[in-house]
């Protein structure tokens, strides 16, 4: 699966080398595919050595990773299901990154979004399902959006570092969720697993027809494309990128930086909040502590691997979904501990971050004339 990422790029990069103009035009784009692809191949190589040290065959490893993630239709559905929440939570980090902000609190926005969506559904028990679902989506997005906007506001008006505040807000969100689920919102029938009441089978949003994959994947892809258009093809996005590049310059040219920060943070939180809503409406059917499954944290990894590009988030989320889908097979067939998948994620993360240093330094891509 890895060579597929890198090889086409290799092919493109080498064959038209005779035409320097081509490289001048597309060299940058090729770089964006080639460097992370090579980093990924390198990371898999290192992981292969790591696994070989445990006495397992690296070839078996790659085979099972491929089989578990992309080898069968079932594996594909497994991968896409796991990728769905990651696209949305990755946007929670990638959007503020356009402004130069490092927000790592997507998990908190997801939890608050899930709580808000569940509350909306429980308040509207008698409404038709479509109304309930729309209300859940709006409530989830508003809840998550306001949560991250809080971190943005603290940064803008109080000078609080948004990375720390958004991270700490995750623990506050978890405490609020546990308090409500074990207290005021608890379904008395949920004896040994404190949970809210169920939103009802009719209000569940179900799967994409013909698959097991829930609608969260479609929401995620639409949100990622919309974010890409917003950032790269609108005046608002341009203003955001200007502010991200140099916040003083942005102020001097009269951009309202505060408004930009709050809006982007709201949109970012709304994406993660929507992920929370989908977890409730498509998977769990209610809110309980199970929702804190770490999607928000994996989303940070996805955003950084995608170099904060909303479009690149989609393939990267699928890749990480695939790694986690294949993790089970690695445990079962190779007897590797679960932590080995985290080791692989860690190696990939380090490799991709380290490869940042290579941009603009690969000779044959510079299109020398």
């Amino acid at each position, binding site marked *: 699966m890895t060579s597929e990422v890198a090889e086409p790029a290799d092919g493109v990069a080498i064959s038209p080398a005779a035409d320097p103009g081509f490289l001048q035009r597309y060299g940058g784009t090729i770089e964006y595919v080639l460097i992370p692809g090579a980093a990924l191949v390198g990371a898999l190589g290192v992981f292969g050595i790591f696994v070989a040290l445990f006495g397992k065959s690296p070839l078996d490893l790659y085979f099972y990773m491929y089989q578990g993630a992309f080898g069968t239709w079932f594996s594909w559905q497994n991968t896409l299901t796991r990728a769905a929440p990651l696209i949305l939570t990755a946007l929670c980090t990638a959007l503020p990154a356009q402004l130069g902000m490092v927000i790592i609190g997507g998990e908190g926005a997801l939890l608050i979004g899930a709580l808000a969506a569940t509350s909306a559904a429980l308040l509207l028990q008698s409404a038709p399902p479509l109304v309930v679902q729309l209300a859940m989506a709006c409530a989830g997005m508003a809840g998550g959006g306001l949560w991250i906007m809080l971190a943005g506001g603290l940064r803008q008006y109080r000078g609080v570092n948004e990375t720390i505040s958004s991270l700490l807000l995750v623990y506050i969100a978890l405490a609020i969720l546990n308090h409500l689920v074990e207290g005021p919102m608890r379904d008395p029938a949920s004896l040994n697993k404190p949970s809210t009441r169920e939103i009802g089978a009719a209000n569940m949003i179900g799967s994409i027809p013909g698959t097991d994959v829930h609608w969260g994947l479609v929401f995620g892809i639409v949100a990622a494309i919309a974010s890409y258009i917003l950032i790269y093809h609108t005046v608002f996005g341009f203003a955001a990128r200007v502010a991200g590049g140099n916040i003083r310059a942005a102020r001097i040219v009269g951009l309202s930086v505060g408004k930009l920060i709050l809006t982007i943070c709201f949109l970012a939180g709304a994406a993660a909040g929507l992920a929370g809503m989908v977890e409730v409406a498509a*998977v769990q*059917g209610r809110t309980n502590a199970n929702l804190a499954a770490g999607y928000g944290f994996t989303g940070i990894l996805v955003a950084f691997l995608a170099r904060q590009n909303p479009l690149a988030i989609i393939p990267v989320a699928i890749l990480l979904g695939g790694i986690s889908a294949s993790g089970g097979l690695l445990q079962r*067939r190779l007897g590797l501990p679960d932590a080995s998948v985290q080791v692989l994620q860690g190696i990939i993360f380090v490799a991709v971050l380290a490869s940042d240093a290579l941009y603009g330094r690969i000779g044959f891509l510079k299109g020398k004339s």
Partner: protein
Amino acid sequence: MDFGRISRRQLLQGSAALTLGTALGARSAAAADTTIGFIYVGSRDDYGYNQAHAQGAAALKKMPGLKVVEEEKVPETDAVEKTMESMINLDGASLLFPTSFGYYNPHMIKMANKFPKLRFEHCGGLWTDKDPKNAGSYFGYIDEAQYISGIVAGYSTKTNKLGFVAAKPIPQVLRNINAFTLGAKLANPKATTQVIFTGDWSMPVKEAEATNSLIDQGVDVLTCHVDGPKTMVENAARRGAMVCGYHVNQSPLAPKAYLTGAEWNWEALYPKFVKMMAAGEAIPNFYRGGLKEEIVKVSPYGEAVSAEARKHADDIKAKLTAGDYVIFKGPITDNKGKTVISAGTDRGQKDAELEKMDYLVDGVIGATS
């Protein structure tokens, strides 16, 4: 590593034909008569809840004609649905043991509906007539073993102060705390149990803090109900306190301090289930039992346990094993002075009221909320 060599050959074939995934699944299903899948929420060597199940799985591995596949650290989200499906599709599993409480509803129920010919056995859930017939829930009355631990603790304490590190104030946990305290008071009417709730199943830092704080208050015998008792056992032993274990036998961690403990006996139950299935008998959908049914057991006594304590504990254990002893026998008052089981009422193990327990008995210092 024959298996490794075969699959490497298949890797080469596989690059040509994409259908190998199904071929491999079929082959491994043919290799063993029955494949059984075990899914754990934590790591299987946690000296606790998950290890107890893994010991049960290990007992099955020794039986001929069985293949056991295991996956650890599977979160209670749709990831567990995908793990079950992956075990079914790729490994050919026909009997599944998703062992964590949160796997039951909606995840295992959904899979049981999707694969009506396969058998699903869940630990801890409360199966009702509304649930699929190919699903079952089993659990043990481990409070019987906690009662024995309580008796031993009551004799062993010098300060008359016992400590209990607990996860959440839910019925299963409260029942253990109450049984432990009633046992202790039977042996030593002056004994009290101070309880600290950590708020979640696996919080090693809070568990260590709770252990230290209990010992600082003069507690000299501790026990717990969290997923991994290792933290409590090791810390308490280091501080010179004595411990009663939980889930599995932790005496290797603290040979001198270990008095006894309440253990699961899955290594007896799981082979029994498999034999029942092989003989064509139906496993009851709702399966419960205690010492008598060999679902729970008591750890061998440590060297610090006095002869008097052993005699009393063995006597009660014999009565519980014979099935003619009631732990929750009225009158019982809670620690706020309210009568919770009136005089003359015997709440036997199978009494459904006990599954809803929401109080701490007299002698417990602590509150449920």
